């Protein structure tokens, strides 16, 4: 570690940023950089979803343990679903809703298909055809959008 760095009094930044310190000659403390780029900075969810929470810095050699997205979900961490960008009626939310609709339709189609096949085994052919025509029985109904997915 570089040790304590105390700025000389009177060092004022011209444009809000004084390049004299950390200007590239002396590398800034990597831990301080990681803390900022991983945990701070503007959080506007990009299109590629990545979970950077639960980062634990274990050793001075910077061995990092990063929870996978699946682990995060298991732990109940789903920050992207509470992100204002996604929970408002923006493109992110519309994309999620469209995804959910598609998934529900697929599940419904699978269930209907499985149900029809079962009934075809148990019931005469006439009734089986009627079951297929009745349409999906997806829980919550097809086409309803719930915020947050």
């Amino acid at each position, binding site marked *: 570690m570089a040790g304590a760095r105390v700025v000389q009094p009177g060092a004022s930044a011209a444009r809000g940023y004084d390049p004299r310190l950390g200007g590239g000659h002396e590398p800034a403390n990597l831990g301080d950089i990681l803390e900022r780029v991983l945990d*701070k900075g*503007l959080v506007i969810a990009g*299109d590629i979803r990545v979970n950077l929470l639960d980062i634990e810095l274990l050793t001075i050699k910077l061995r990092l343990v990063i929870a996978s997205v699946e682990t995060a979900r298991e732990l109940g961490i789903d920050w992207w679903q509470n992100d204002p960008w996604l929970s408002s009626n923006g493109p992110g939310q519309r994309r999620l809703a469209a995804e959910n609709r598609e998934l529900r339709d697929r599940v419904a189609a699978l269930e209907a298909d499985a149900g029809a096949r079962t009934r075809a085994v148990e019931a005469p052919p006439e009734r089986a055809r009627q079951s297929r025509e009745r349409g999906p029985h997806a829980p919550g109904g097809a086409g309803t959008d719930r915020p947050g997915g």
Partner: protein
Amino acid sequence: MAEDFGSWAYAVAGGMERDWLEAMTGVGGRPVHPVQAAGLSAAVTAVRLEHYGEEPLRRQLEDIGWLEATALTHHRVIETIARRTRLIPMRLATVYHSDAAVAAMLAARRDDLIAALARVAARTEWGVKIYAPQRRDTGAGPAAAAAAGPAPGSPGAAYLHRRRTELSARQDARRAALASADDIHRALGRLAAAVQLRAPQDPQLTGQPEPMMLNGAYLVDDEQSGRFTTAVQSLAERHPAVRIELTGPWPPYSFATVDEPGAAL
């Protein structure tokens, strides 16, 4: 093909000149270019989705070497642009499907972004870390021993008496250190436009033997920079039992929000 590339975003600013970015190397060793929309600019690198799509990116983030190199690159690009103009740094690994998607984000969040930029205009982030006193400084001195009263006769009892004295001396030292950290934090907060406290860093990360008592980010008006840094030095002299470490100037990572700003004291 354009579809094979995503757009890795570094920062948002008002204006950005292409020639500021031309000399830079961004993530993956690729160049940096501006995306402009709605009167705002984002610094961006085109990245191959086979390496920066959701699944490969997640795997890469678990590779320490990759993470370290990428974090440093991300920061260097931000730092370089910050010398030219005020900006809002993006968190690492904010990747869009395309430059058009970046432009759409700028347009959609224009008001929020302009407000965020206004909050950091003509201001700089400084990091202040305070470390607890060294262990040996908290040993029982003669005053503490005297306050503890006369030692009892037997060796066992004398040992326990000594331990009790040491422990209470350590407790006193810790209390004093906490009071110092609090005092320093309040004094610096008065010179800052906004403050963000975060969890102390793990000793294994800092490489320092003493535990960290305060890990703060202070957003300071440019005209106050001199007063702020002078104050850090004089506070360090007034509180010799603790160690203060000042880092900066930083681009305003800790104050880059579109909701509420850091709490001002």
